[in-house]
C-alpha cells in the first residue's frame, strides 16, 4: 500500500523472516540429522537396504530443502525495497533447461534406484521351503496360523468363526489337516529363516505393519496377499494396524517375536503339545 512507506521494504520484517527461515531450517535439519526421533533398527538385510535408500533420499531432499529455504531467506533480505529499482528480466531459458534437467535426473533417478528393493519384496516371491504363516486381521485383533507338523493348512469356514469359543479363524474340525494347525494371537518366527506371510482379513481392510521389518501390507478382505522376509535379530517387535478399520483401530496391536532356531523349535513343540 503506497501511503504507508515504512513497512514496504522494512529491514525488520525482512530480517525476521529470513532469520525465522534459517532457524526453522537449521532446527529441522538438526533433528533429522541427530535422529532424535528415528526408525528403530532394522532386523533384516532388506531393512538395511531400505535404510540406505532413505539416506540417499534424505541427502538429496536435505540439500534441496536447505538451498531453497536459505535461497528464499537471502532473496527476501537482499532484495527488500530500499529504494532501488527492480531489475527487469523475464526469465532465463538456459537456467530453466538446466534446472529442469537436473531435477528430472535427480528425481527420476532416485525413483529408479529404489526399484531393486521393491523388486526384492514384491516382484519375487518367497523361496519354496519358507516358513508359512497365515495372518488374519479382524476387528480388532490379529491371529496367526501355522500349518503344524503336517505342513498343510486346514480348511477355514466363515460360519465357524467364533472368537468367544476359541476359534477366531473358523478352522474346520472336519478337515484332518486342521487338527495340528497352531493358531496364536502373537507371531513367532525363527531368525535367519525365510518367513512367508499370507495376509488376509475377515471383515474390513486392515494393515499388517512391523517397523523393524520396514514392511507393511494391507490385509484386504477377499484377497490373500503374500509377503516375505528373513529376520536376523532375535527380539520382540510391535505389530500395529495401519489401515483405519473402525473404533478399535488404535488398539489393534500384537507382537512379532524372533527367536533363535533352537528356541523357535521348542516354541513350536510347546504349541503342538498344547494342541493335542
Amino acid at each position, binding site marked *: 500500500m503506497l501511503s504507508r512507506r515504512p513497512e514496504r521494504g522494512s529491514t525488520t520484517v525482512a530480517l*525476521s523472516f529470513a532469520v525465522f527461515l534459517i532457524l526453522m531450517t537449521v532446527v529441522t535439519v538438526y533433528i533429522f540429522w541427530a535422529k532424535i*526421533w528415528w526408525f528403530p533398527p532394522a532386523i533384516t538385510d532388506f531393512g538395511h537396504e531400505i535404510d540406505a535408500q532413505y539416506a540417499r533420499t534424505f541427502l538429496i531432499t536435505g540439500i534441496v530443502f536447505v538451498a531453497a529455504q536459505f535461497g*528464499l531467506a537471502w532473496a527476501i533480505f537482499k532484495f*527488500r525495497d530500499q529504494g532501488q529499482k*527492480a531489475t*527487469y528480466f523475464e526469465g532465463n531459458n538456459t537456467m530453466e533447461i538446466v534446472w529442469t534437467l537436473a531435477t528430472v535426473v535427480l528425481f527420476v533417478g532416485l525413483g529408479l534406484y529404489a526399484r531393486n528393493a521393491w523388486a526384492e*519384496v514384491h516382484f519375487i516371491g518367497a523361496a519354496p521351503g519358507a516358513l508359512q504363516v497365515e495372518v488374519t486381521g479382524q476387528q480388532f485383533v490379529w491371529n496367526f496360523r501355522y500349518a503344524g507338523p503336517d505342513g498343510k493348512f486346514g480348511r477355514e469356514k466363515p460360519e465357524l468363526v467364533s472368537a468367544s469359543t476359541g476359534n477366531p479363524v473358523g478352522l474346520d474340525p472336519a478337515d484332518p489337516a486342521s487338527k495340528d494347525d497352531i493358531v496364536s494371537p502373537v507371531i513367532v518366527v525363527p531368525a535367519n529363516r525365510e518367513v512367508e506371510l499370507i495376509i488376509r482379513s475377515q471383515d*474390513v481392510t486392515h494393515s499388517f505393519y512391523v517397523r523393524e521389518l520396514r514392511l507393511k501390507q494391507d490385509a484386504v478382505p*477377499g484377497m490373500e496377499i503374500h509377503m516375505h522376509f528373513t529376520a536376523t535379530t532375535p527380539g520382540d517387535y510391535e505389530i500395529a494396524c495401519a489401515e483405519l478399520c473402525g473404533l478399535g483401530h488404535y488398539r489393534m496391536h500384537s507382537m512379532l517375536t524372533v527367536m533363535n532356531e533352537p528356541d523357535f523349535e521348542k516354541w513350536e513343540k510347546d504349541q503342538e503339545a498344547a494342541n493335542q
Partner: protein
Amino acid sequence: MVTHEDGGGHAHQHQPPSGFIRKYVFSIDHKVIGIQYLMLALFSVFVGMALSLLMRLHLAWPTAHFSIFKGGQMTPEQYLALMTMHGTIMVFMVLTTAPQSGFGNYFLPIQIGAADMAFPVLNMMSFWTTFLSLVVMICAFFVSGGAPIGGWTSYPPLSALGEIVGPGQGGGETLWIIGLAIFCGASLMGALNFITTLIDLRAKGMTLGRLPLTCWTWFVTAILGLLAFGVLLAACILLLLDRLAGTSFFIPGGLVVTDQVITWHKGGSPLLWQHLFWFFGHPEVYIAILPGMGVASHLLSTFSRKPVFGYRAMVGAVCGIGFLGFCVWGHHMFISGMSPYSAFAFSILTMTIGVPSAIKTFNWLGTLWGGKIQFNCAMLFALGFVSLFVSGGLSGLFLAQPALDLYLHDGYFVVAHFHLIMGVAAIFGMFAGLYFWFPKMFGKFMNEGIGKLHFWLTFIGVYAIFMPMHFLGLAGNPRRYSEMTAGPFLQALQPVHVFISIAAFITIAAQLIFLFNFIWSLMAGKEAKEENPWHATTLEWSIPSPPPFDNFAGVEPVVYHGPYEFSVPGAADDYIPQHLAPNLVRKA
C-alpha cells in the same frame, strides 16, 4: 422487465438487481457468488478447525474430562467421526471452494475483461448446490449413530457394511455419501462455467499468453474438476448401491463381522473403490493447490515489482501438473495389494510430477531475485507459501518411492506431507489472496498491523504443528489413531503429541485474530478510495472498488500488455497496466 428495449442512440445498461434476495441471496452476479463461496469456506474452515482442535486435545490428553461428551470422555468413535468430518469439510468445503469458486468466481471474469461468467444462473445454482451438500453433510452429525468414522477416503468394506462395522457407519455414512454426490454435481457445474468463460469470453487483446497466472491456474483447476468429479460421482453411486440395494461392487464374500457371517454380499473388490476414489482424489489435491500457486506467482511478481520469472515455463508447469495429476493416483495404493508392477510405474510418474513443481519453485525464487520487495500482509503470506510448499513438497519424494512407502504409508509422515501442502500452503494462498483483493472487493483495507500479527503467529505455528509430525512418522506412528496407548513405542511418542497440540491450540486461536480483522475491516477498515492502491497491472485494478455490478460499466476493455509488466526499462512508472494503450504509457 423482461424485454429490453433498444434505448435509441445511447447505451442502455442492464438494470442491476433490486431487492435484498436478488442482490445478496439468489444473485447471479459472479462477484456476489464469489463472496458467498468465500463465506461458506470461512464458516467451514472454522468448523474444520474446531473439529481438529477437539482431536488434538484428545490426542494430547486422552483421559481428560470434556463435559461436552457423554460421560465426560471422548470415545474412539467420536474421535474418528471428528477426524472424518474434519478431513471432508476441509478438503471439499474449504480447499475446493475458496481458492477456485471463491476467488476464481470473483476475479476470473474481471481479469479477462468479461462482464460476468458465461452462465450466471448456472453459477448461482452451483453455489446453492454446494450449500445444500454442506447442509446434508453436517446433518450426519445429528443422526443416530452420529457422523461416519471411515475417514474422508471412506474405504469399503468399512464404509459399505453399515452400522455393523462401527457407529456412524449407518445413517451418518449414507448422508455423507449423498452430500458428497451433491457436491460433485455442484463442482461439475462450476467447472463448466469457468472453462467456457475462459475460452470464449476473453476481452480483445487478452490472448492466452497475456492471461494472469491466476487465470491459468483457475483454468487448469477447472479442467481437473470437470474430468475428475464425474468419477467420484460414479463411485458414490456404486457405494450407495452396495449399502442400500444389496449389490456387491466393493464387498467380497465370506466376511465375518463380530462372529456374524455376511451372506448377502460376495465377489466385490475393495480395491475398485480405491482406484475410483483416487483417480478423482489425486486431481482433487491439485485442485486444492493450483489456485494458491497462481496467487503466489501473481503476488510475488506484483510486490517484487518484477515480471514473473519464466512465465511460459510457469504455464507449462501448471499444465504439466494438471496432466500428470491424472496419471499418478496409484501412489496412494502402493500397499493396497495392487500389482507391484503398476505400483512401480505410478512411482516413476509421481517422481516426474515433482519436476514441474520444482520448476515453479525455482521460478518463484527467480521472480524475487533482483526485485524490490514490499512486505505487506499479502506478500508475507505469498512468501510463506513458497517456504511451506517446499517443505511439504519434499516429503513427497519419500512417499513416491514404494520401497520407502512400505514404512511410511498411513503414518504421520503422510499427515505432515499433505497438511503442509493443503492444510497450510493452500490456506496461505487464500490468505494472501484475501489481503490482496480485500480492498477491491469491499472498498476497505484489512488492517496491516493486525494482519502481520496474524501472519507471524500462523507461520511459526504451522511449522510447530506439522514439522514434528515428520518425526512421528519416522518413528512409525500410524495415522487415524485416537490415542497412542496401545504399545510402548507409541507411548514414547506422547510428548511430541502434546507439543503439537499446544502449538495447534495457539495457532487456531491466532485465526480468531484474523476473523476479528476481517469483520472489523469490513465495518470500519481504512477506505480504499483508489482503484489501484497496489499499483498492480491486471484488469481488476482498472475498475472501482468495489466494482459496479457489470464490472466494466458496459465498456469492453482492450488489453495491450502482458500481465506482469513491472519495472519495464524506459517506462516512467514501475508498472504498466494491461489495459493501458501503448501511446499512453509514460516514458522515463
